[in-house]
């Protein structure tokens, strides 16, 4: 079979599965789940085949919009080192999460809706990965937004879930608006939407430096929305209202990483525009630090992980902004996808064992009752914290090491965030798994079924080894260089110090804790009041503007223009009614008088 055929099949199979589930097998639970998992396994085989084959090139499907040389939007698949690596990430994690969902969603309502949403998401995500031009990517970008909306709102009868889905969609809309403008600007300056056209970007950049720089920043707006960067990060913690496997697949491993993938895609022009990369790097660093701080004071087991995800996405974005190599953010994306997905799945296992209790202060002492969950959690937690010999260590330290040379402020922010990561993860681990049970549920917690534990074990392996040099070489040597930069020796000591300080501080504070967090910092607990601030903006400013518009609409457009003209016509008609006297001869008289009047006018008035 030709490789382009495999690529197309890989892309389309999940869509077919989603359509079949929705249209045909709605009522049947096993068929819905089976179709979705089968499609995910097919993409798994397809994705790895494409990766191993090392195929490159653009496979044109058809020209979607074609005005000859002036303007054309192709609809084709691009296979290059970047998309092949991303393809492996998506197609490896997706089937694992799909299978895990079998156990997690067993007794839930809307089973078919859930699996159809997952399959639709997989299709859209593969579309983003394989798209060979910005417009096509944007289409799939919106499609993942839709599937995210569907899946966050899975428990739509709960107001909080429905609101979270709406918020996720609307906040992303803000970023996507910039993305769309960026695409247009990009086209204006280069005359093409294709990623392959970026190879000549340095020359094009010399011609339009400002235009391309602005285009980069605008396209980055899409990343800010999708990858939950400051200031559009607010939707991601709320999206935890969705089922936990969804949080794991969409809101930790793949979908939110699409923004970073986008940055890696436009890296050739991003890297030659100093201003644009500065914006990207600083945004990423601020996000990494801010979300890291907020994660230290969350009480929801998924909330901690959500802020941690934002923080790690901040690392990736900052890595892209350092303009060193497209492989740098992708490397962290790669390792993060595995260990964060794993962490969310273990959190799901804990939540299921705790009968849907998510507050960590109601847990405690779970390590004996859920041993496998605990062990796999440790793998993920150590990888995230950047412990030596775990995957996160390699990718995170590389980004920080590169930032030392390129941007000192970013470097220090990232280092502080790197100290916070082990802190909040140790806090979570100690409170959830150690100590005494703090509630009835925690006393009677039970280990999850095998169908959930096997995925955990499968993910724990890459969570440990994904950063090792041989893996790095296999997946990244074609994308770009990941050579360790020359850094002073004390920097490496700082990294180690940050890690041990974080763990040590958390161990000191949370080693023996009661039912409450000994540290309470309201500003952190309340998310820096950013959510409240946005609420205020929406309520007062946007609401006030809406009221003004409503006033104009109701009184000016409706009152004067629409109803006013109607009133004039009606009044005229009312006045003319009195001529309808109902007497034949009177009508004849009016008629005759009218004729006489007309003749008079014809003769005497010129």
């Amino acid at each position: 079979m030709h490789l382009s055929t495999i690529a197309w099949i890989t892309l389309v199979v999940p869509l077919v599965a989603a359509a079949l589930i929705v249209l045909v097998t709605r009522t049947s639970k096993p068929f819905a789940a089976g179709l979705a998992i089968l499609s995910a396994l097919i993409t798994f085989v397809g994705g790895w085949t494409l990766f191993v084959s090392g195929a490159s090139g653009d496979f044109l499907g058809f020209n979607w919009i074609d005005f000859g040389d002036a303007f054309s939007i192709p609809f084709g698949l691009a296979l290059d080192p970047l998309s092949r690596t991303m393809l492996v990430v998506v197609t490896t994690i997706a089937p694992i999460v799909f299978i895990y969902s079998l156990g997690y969603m067993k007794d839930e309502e809307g089973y078919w809706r859930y699996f159809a949403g997952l399959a639709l998401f997989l299709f859209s995500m593969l579309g983003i990965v394989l798209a060979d031009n910005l417009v096509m990517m944007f289409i799939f970008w919106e499609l993942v937004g839709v599937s995210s909306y569907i899946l966050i709102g899975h428990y739509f009868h709960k107001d909080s879930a429905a609101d979270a889905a709406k918020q996720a969609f609307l906040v992303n809309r803000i970023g996507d608006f910039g993305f769309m403008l960026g695409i247009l600007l990009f086209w204006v300056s280069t005359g093409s939407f294709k990623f392959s056209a970026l190879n000549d970007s340095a020359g094009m950049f010399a011609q339009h430096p400002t235009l391309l720089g602005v285009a980069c920043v605008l396209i980055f707006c899409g990343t800010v929305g999708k990858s939950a960067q400051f200031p559009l990060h607010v939707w991601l913690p709320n999206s935890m209202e969705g089922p936990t496997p969804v949080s794991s697949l969409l809101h930790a491993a793949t979908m939110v990483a699409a923004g970073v993938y986008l940055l890696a895609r436009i890296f050739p022009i991003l890297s030659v525009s100093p201003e644009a990369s500065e914006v990207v790097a600083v945004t990423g660093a601020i996000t990494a630090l801010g979300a890291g701080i907020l994660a230290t004071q969350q009480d929801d087991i998924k909330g901690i992980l959500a802020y941690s995800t934002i923080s790690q996405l901040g690392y990736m974005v900052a890595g892209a902004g350092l303009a060193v190599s497209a492989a740098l953010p992708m490397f962290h994306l790669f390792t993060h996808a595995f260990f964060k997905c794993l962490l969310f799945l273990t959190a799901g296992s804990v939540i299921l064992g705790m009968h849907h209790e998510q507050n960590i202060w109601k847990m405690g002492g779970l390590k004996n009752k859920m041993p496998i969950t605990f062990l796999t959690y440790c793998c993920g937690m150590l990888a995230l914290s950047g412990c030596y010999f775990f995957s996160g260590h390699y990718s995170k330290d590389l980004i920080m090491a590169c930032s030392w040379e390129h941007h000192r402020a970013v470097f220090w922010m990232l280092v502080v965030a790197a100290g916070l990561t082990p802190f909040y993860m140790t806090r979570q681990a100690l409170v959830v798994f150690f100590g005494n049970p703090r509630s009835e549920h925690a006393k009677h917690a039970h280990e999850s079924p095998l169908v959930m534990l096997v995925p955990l074990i499968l993910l724990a392996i890459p969570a440990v080894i994904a950063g090792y040099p041989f893996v790095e070489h296999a997946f990244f040597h074609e994308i770009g260089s990941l050579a360790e930069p020359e850094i002073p020796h004390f920097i490496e000591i700082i990294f180690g110090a940050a890690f041990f300080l974080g763990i040590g501080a958390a161990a000191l504070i949370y080693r023996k804790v009661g039912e409450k967090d000994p540290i309470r910092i309201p500003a952190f607990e309340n998310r820096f009041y950013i959510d409240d601030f946005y609420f205020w903006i929406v309520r007062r400013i946007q609401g006030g503007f809406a009221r003004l518009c409503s006033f104009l609409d109701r009184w000016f457009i409706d009152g004067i223009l629409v109803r006013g003209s109607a009133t004039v016509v009606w009044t005229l008609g009312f006045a003319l009614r009195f001529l309808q006297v109902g007497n034949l001869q009177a009508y004849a008289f009016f008629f005759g008088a009218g004729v006489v009047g007309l003749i008079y006018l014809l003769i005497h008035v010129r």
Partner: protein
Amino acid sequence: MPTLANYLIASGLLFAIGLGGVMLRRSIIIIFMGLEMMLNAANLSLVAFSRYGLVGGHQNYDAQVLVFFIITVAAAEVAVGLAIIVSLYRARQTTHVEDLDSLKF
């Protein structure tokens, strides 16, 4: 030999009588007759103009032919009009216009 003016005066008188009938009489049949009279007043003036108006020094009979057409069409129209009156009488048992005043404000 009567002149054109005599004919036009006769025509005008006919028209005025017809108009008076239409305006003043109550019976719809009489009104209808008045209408016919006005029509024929117009026919009369048409024939008179034709008789006295020379085109290039020759008689022109176009208008007189036209009058025959008008009479024919008027006959057809009278048939329709009378049919309407008959059906009106069947519906209302009256031909007096004062009683037919339901279409008013």
